[in-house]
């Protein structure tokens, strides 16, 4: 079966983080990982319904881990040096790792620095190639004020997620479905085909 469908879509913003209850360790995650994890949790998909090694993760971060890199660098003059915890998040792929840890997923994962248009096609490719039966596609925009000044972008803190799966779902995914944010806005969690 070559048909790939959108199963669920969700969005997360900084406003939603305060009320998020995603475990005792959620607080130590950097902003990007928190947003990504909240967006995926908001999909309300039971990922345990499939073998954990058959679900992939495909994540793109608009500014990579630059906001966290700057936070880490700014901490170098404090007593004891910069935060070791923050160091773990100075890689854009950390958010994909946190999603995998939280949902105990062991499938393939991809990470890109760039816009949202690459995420869904790459996620669909993972499924088409037979590397996974489903793929969690996430796009993060975590840009702090300091980071924004550096790269001439306004501060942002949002993430959106779409779960693609082989077979039928909410709607069939097509090659031209590349803009994740409008797609996520269109498909509310209430309509998710879980």
């Amino acid at each position, binding site marked *: 079966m070559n048909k790939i469908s959108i199963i669920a879509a969700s969005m997360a913003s900084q406003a939603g983080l305060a009320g998020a*209850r995603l*475990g*005792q*360790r*959620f*607080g*130590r995650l950097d902003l990007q990982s928190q947003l990504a994890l909240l967006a995926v949790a908001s999909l309300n998909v039971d990922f345990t319904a499939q073998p954990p090694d058959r679900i992939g993760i495909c994540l793109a971060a608009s500014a990579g881990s630059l906001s966290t890199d700057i936070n880490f660098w700014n901490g170098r003059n*404090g*007593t*004891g*040096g910069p*935060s*070791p*915890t923050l160091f*773990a998040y100075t890689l854009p792929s950390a958010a994909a790792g946190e999603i995998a840890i939280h949902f105990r997923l062991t499938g393939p994962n991809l990470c890109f620095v760039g816009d949202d248009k690459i995420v869904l096609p790459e996620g669909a490719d993972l499924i088409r190639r037979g590397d996974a039966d489903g793929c969690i596609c996430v796009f993060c925009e975590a840009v702090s004020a300091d980071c924004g000044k550096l790269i001439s972008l306004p501060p942002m803190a949002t993430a959106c997620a779409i779960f693609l799966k082989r077979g039928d779902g909410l709607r069939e995914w097509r090659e031209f479905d590349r803009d994740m944010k409008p797609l996520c806005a269109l498909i509310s969690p209430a309509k998710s085909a879980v």
Partner: protein
Amino acid sequence: MQISTHELKSKIIESLKLQDIIPEQIDDDAPLFGTGLGLDSIDALELVVLLERDYGIVIKDIEEGRPAFRSVKTLAEFIAAKRPQ
């Protein structure tokens, strides 16, 4: 100088950004790592930073610090013994 285990627990919660837990829920003798509070290696490094920042204790040899990190009680005793007067 003795330090309050309650104060130390509060600092651990704040420093490690633990959520949904209060000092009263942490047993003085419970293991900090693995079982008990369930901390990991990154938390261990963060605790080393906490000791230096808040108590002026620098751990240069991890073997020296290892017994101190067994529980809140052993950590409080370690701080009391090593804290600069």
